[in-house]
């Protein structure tokens, strides 16, 4: 059961801390080759954009933006990391943080209101062989991985998971991948054939899904073979919507396999600074729906990315010397991470 509202910063931290610990384990690194500590590098520019976003969404009339619910949480997280390590001290940073987090809850609630009508209009494919169940699970995983590559680890910019919804005595999960052609980041995606892919998976109702606040499932038992029906909608580059037949699923899988392989190779050919530049571009891309509304550029200003990177590394080292000692034991790590994620505590 998701929250209706975060009442306080502590309320958010109760969910953020276990998620953070679960995500990075004992080794804070990622395939981007950019250590998670580089998150300190997000600049004042990011803080300004976050503040602008929080003001915009605080106005009830402006509450709807095409930002995925989980991405609001990511923005809130980066915002507080930036205010923690940069010189920017916002008097009301905890209020802005809370506003961003509650925008996540609010946009998810709005989505939930609309979904039931949608479900009743869907024609599900049922009576599935185990191989077909695995294939649908693979398709979901492929799209997520594709988003991970598009947005340099920040897959929630590209899509989100909604549910579970009880419908017709089953548990439905909807995975909505809605930003699959970010040509401003990767020009080559102009050739990707789908603008959006939405998957609706119906599972036996004896499954209790558990997930963190970013929609990462934490179930301890596999639910793949509990799938009892599916419907998959694609929206092509001209906006034409269609539902896949079982045979067409193979085509989409083949397309995604090729694109994932190509994008992975593309990243492997880049050096650390080039990847850092893409990653920063992705982070700011989150604000595109805002700037599309209010005008101005969502793009970060790169004066000299390599110098900027070095500068940031210096910041990180300073922070590291002060705070990032080797932390043994889960309790100590949890305490440290709570301090790290708390916008009220400045370093």
């Amino acid at each position: 059961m998701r929250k209706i509202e975060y009442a306080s910063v502590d309320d958010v931290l109760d969910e953020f801390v276990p998620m953070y610990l679960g995500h990075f384990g004992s080794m804070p690194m990622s395939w981007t080759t950019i250590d998670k500590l580089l998150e300190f590098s997000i600049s004042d520019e990011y803080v300004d954009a976050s503040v602008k976003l929080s003001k915009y969404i605080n106005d009830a009339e402006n509450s709807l933006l095409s930002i995925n619910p989980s991405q609001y949480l990511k923005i809130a997280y980066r915002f507080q990391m930036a205010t923690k390590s940069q010189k920017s001290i916002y008097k009301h940073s905890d209020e802005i943080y809370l506003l961003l987090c509650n925008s996540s809850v609010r946009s998810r609630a709005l989505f939930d209101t609309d979904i039931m009508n949608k479900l009743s209009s869907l024609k599900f494919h049922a009576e599935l062989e185990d191989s077909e169940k695995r294939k649908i699970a693979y398709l979901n995983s492929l799209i997520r991985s594709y988003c991970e590559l598009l947005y340099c680890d920040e897959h929630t910019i590209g899509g989100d998971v909604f549910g579970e919804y009880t419908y017709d005595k089953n548990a439905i999960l909807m995975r909505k991948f809605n930003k699959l052609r970010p040509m401003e980041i990767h020009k080559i995606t102009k050739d990707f054939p789908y603008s959006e892919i939405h998957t609706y998976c119906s599972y036996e109702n004896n499954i209790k899904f558990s997930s963190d606040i970013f929609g990462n499932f934490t179930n301890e038992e596999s639910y793949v073979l509990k799938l009892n029906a599916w419907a998959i909608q694609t929206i092509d580059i001209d906006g034409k919507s269609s539902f896949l037949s079982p045979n067409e699923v193979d085509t989409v899988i083949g397309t995604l396999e090729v694109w994932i392989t190509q994008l992975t190779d593309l990243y492997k050919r880049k050096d650390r600074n080039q990847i850092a530049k893409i990653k920063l571009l992705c982070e700011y891309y989150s604000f595109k729906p805002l700037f599309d509304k209010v005008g101005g550029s969502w793009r970060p200003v790169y004066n000299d990315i390599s110098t900027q990177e070095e500068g940031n590394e210096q910041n990180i080292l300073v922070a590291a010397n002060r705070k990032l000692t080797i932390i043994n034991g889960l309790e100590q790590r949890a305490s440290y991470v709570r301090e790290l994620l708390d916008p009220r505590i400045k370093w």
Partner: protein
Amino acid sequence: MLNKLCSGRGIFDFNVEGYVLLESDIIESRSSEINGKIIVANIPYPDAVISLYRCLAYVAQSGGITSHLAVLGREMGVPVVVGATGIFSSVKTGDYVIIDSISGEATIYEKN
């Protein structure tokens, strides 16, 4: 004879054994060489999803229980071990290993 190599966080309870294929030795992610193998990676790239669909199990030196690989393992019902510190330097392609995962604690053994 079993020789304990390392431990990590297991996704699901499982017990599997098979031949290791280092991720760095994979030539083509969709090839049949992956079928039935236990893939071992340092930090998996997102294209790990392609071999994950075909392998017996996937072990990564990095990551936590909600890292990308762990999430994919759950989504696809494939046994995954994350945070297996030291595994990448402990095995090579062709080694035979056993993985025992109970209640989130996974232990990896080498079978001589």
